[in-house]
């Protein structure tokens, strides 16, 4: 039973918990973006970083285990600078219109969406290639959850992976072939874990586009063009 101090609060937790889990048990709030209970924690968004005494760099609380004698600060100046800058860079790269949680973090950390002017954004056209869901990667924050649930975290389908590298990374299929041509089984789990509306049920997308509910009939591949043509 490790005993540790988080933000001056002394806590004792059961073995094997991450700092994030330990903190949440005591209602200490640590923000996350990529973390999801159904996926393996990758520690990649770095929003959950904390300062731990004796460690040179900030540590991702979603993967670092709570250990006896640890002294953790979740809201230090260094932590806040990193979180605020990450949020500002995110807002300069991605369309966060459908990400109310991230927008909430933006105001909590006083992050300015216009901090980085003349920044190259990841702007891509909506991929509308199947009757179940659309893929709007301009809204993708690369949390990896969809790739993970499509693979070993849930479905073992491996329909999607990455294309590009670095800032130009995108989620994609084999040579960008349309979803129905892949191994996708349309289980919908990727849509369920997407935090930003980059993956969205087709029906929700059409409703947002102003298509009347009665015009969206049964979901099958023949309806997509019909719904669109009725609208125009």
């Amino acid at each position, binding site marked *: 039973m490790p005993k540790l101090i988080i933000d001056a609060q002394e806590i004792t937790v059961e073995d094997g918990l991450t700092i994030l889990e330990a903190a949440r048990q005591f209602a200490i709030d640590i923000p996350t*973006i990529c973390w999801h209970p159904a996926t393996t924690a*990758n*520690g*990649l*968004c*770095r*929003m959950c*970083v904390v300062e731990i005494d004796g460690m040179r*760099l*900030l540590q*991702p609380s979603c*993967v670092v285990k709570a250990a006896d004698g640890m002294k953790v600060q979740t809201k230090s100046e*260094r932590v806040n*600078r*990193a979180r*605020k*800058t*990450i949020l*500002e*860079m*995110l807002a*300069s*790269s991605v369309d966060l219109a459908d990400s109310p949680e991230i927008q909430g973090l933006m105001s909590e950390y006083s992050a300015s969406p216009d*901090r*980085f*002017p*003349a*920044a*190259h954004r990841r702007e891509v056209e909506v991929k509308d290639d199947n009757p179940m869901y659309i893929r709007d990667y301009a809204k993708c924050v*690369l949390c990896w959850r969809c790739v993970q649930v499509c*693979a070993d975290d849930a479905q073992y389908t*491996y*329909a*999607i*992976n*990455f*294309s*590009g*590298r*670095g*800032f*130009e*990374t995108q989620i*994609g*299929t*084999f*040579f960008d072939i349309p979803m129905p041509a*892949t*191994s996708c089984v349309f289980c919908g789990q990727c849509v369920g874990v997407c935090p930003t509306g980059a993956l969205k049920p087709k029906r929700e997308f059409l409703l947002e586009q102003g298509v009347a509910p009665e015009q969206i009939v049964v979901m099958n591949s023949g309806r997509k063009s019909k719904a669109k043509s009725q609208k125009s």
Partner: protein
Amino acid sequence: MSEIDLTPLREILPIYALQGRSGLLPALHAAQKHYGWLPQPVAAEVAQALQVPLADVHGVIEFYSLFYNQPVGKRIIRICTDAACALKGADHILSGLCARHGIQPNQTALDGATTIESSPCLGLCDHAPAALVNNEAETNFDPSQNSWEPGRPASKIYRLSSFLTSNCGKGRAATLAEYGDYPAYHRTLTMTPESVIAEVKAAGLVGRGGAAFPTGIKWEGAAKADRFPKYLVCNADESEPGTFKDRVLLLDDPHCVIEGMCIAAHAIGAQKGYIYLRGEYPYILPGLENALAEAREAGYLGEKFDIEIRLGAGAYICGEETALFESIEGKRGYPRIKPPFPTTNGLFNQPTVINNVETLCNVPLIIAKGPSAYRQIGTEKSPGPKLFCVSGDVARPGVYEVPFGVTLRELLRMANGDPTDPLADSSLENHIQAILFGGAAGAFATSAHLDVKLTFEDLRAAGLPLGSGVVMVFNQSRDLRQTLAVLGKFFAHESCGKCYPCQMGTQRQAEILERIAEGKRKAGDLDRLQDIGWTMTDASLCGLGQTAASAVLSALKLGLIKI
């Protein structure tokens, strides 16, 4: 798309399929060698043969710069436009060459014969400006004549000591007969693994790849792990801009690193070793393969321990040890979260030691001389010889072998010609504007640092990283804003994209550095660079992001950017 004949591919794939997913990069290399690029049906065939999901194969092709999923020319000319080559007019050469072929950089000429690319550092900084033409180094081309003489890059070696480079500089690889019959390895066979490790620890050897971790402690960790198999990996993914020492060691004296690997394998109990050679060093491959064959013939390699070469495919991040493991495993080169560390959970999640080429080359020396004689070289806290890669505005760029403890001034006197000439010395201060230490991931020094001793401890005290031994000199006439823009572009190109601070930070940093170089700085840009830089340094997942702002932040601190 015209019909692609998959028959030849089906003939070669079974060898790679034996390795499962780990055979993916070698299979893609082999397929690309045959077809010139990787068309969709070829990638699908590879995926099926190796039982790797299609999307994953595509993801791997997309990650590595040297894999192409669209047609490229039969001749691919990669012009290095990184820091050292940029000083020697690489941009002009690139644009001139492209104009001659009527294309833009990274395009293929209409006749389909030639592709011209702008490349990150090719490890040929001692020959700047340099290029890679297919599998050969071009170190001597004349853009005005369009004359090409690609081949094996010459080694330029200068020495105050001759421990690591004594066999180097012949213009070819030293043969086994010239190298000798692995005397140090023979000695270790009479020793217990524990006593081999004890000697390496006693010698005070630390890693020469950049992180300076004590080698003996690393070995001990893997030796004590009680899981088998164990792996030994030689990190020959030398990609830090400004670094080219491992290229010289591998080209000229491959048996030294192989003997070092045999000793390390004995010490940790590894049966299988890998040399992960960077994809931009294809011309090292034949000589290295030949040396491995010689070592097998002589019985140094075989059933007990053998070595496989893995060729990278254009990704700086794969020099990071865990990303390198992922790459050998046939995946995108994403770094893993540490801990767990490689000594317990490394390649294929097994206990693994991974050492840099130069580190392994020190091992035979330690075992042959004994630790106390080894410690006679260098200083008490930084024992041994060290290779420095000197480039940029010096008269004699090259690999400098010196004992730890010489001063930067002494090194640069050598590099500027006559080490005893007092005039050369007095002009040093006037000549130098800045020195990039440790590579793109390093930091800038100025002539105020000329008398710092080149040791781990003295450099640390001076706030300078030794890194991989890069000393890149910039004279007074240089516009360092251009250099910073080049460094920024490098990191944006090479970030793997996994963690947010580096994925977006390298991009934003590059944009700001580019507009500063163009004289179009926006209000608040220096604050932005500080916030990006400190966020990347403090919160990135791996060493790439943690050092991607190091040179920029040091330049700002030293006031080197005149705005």
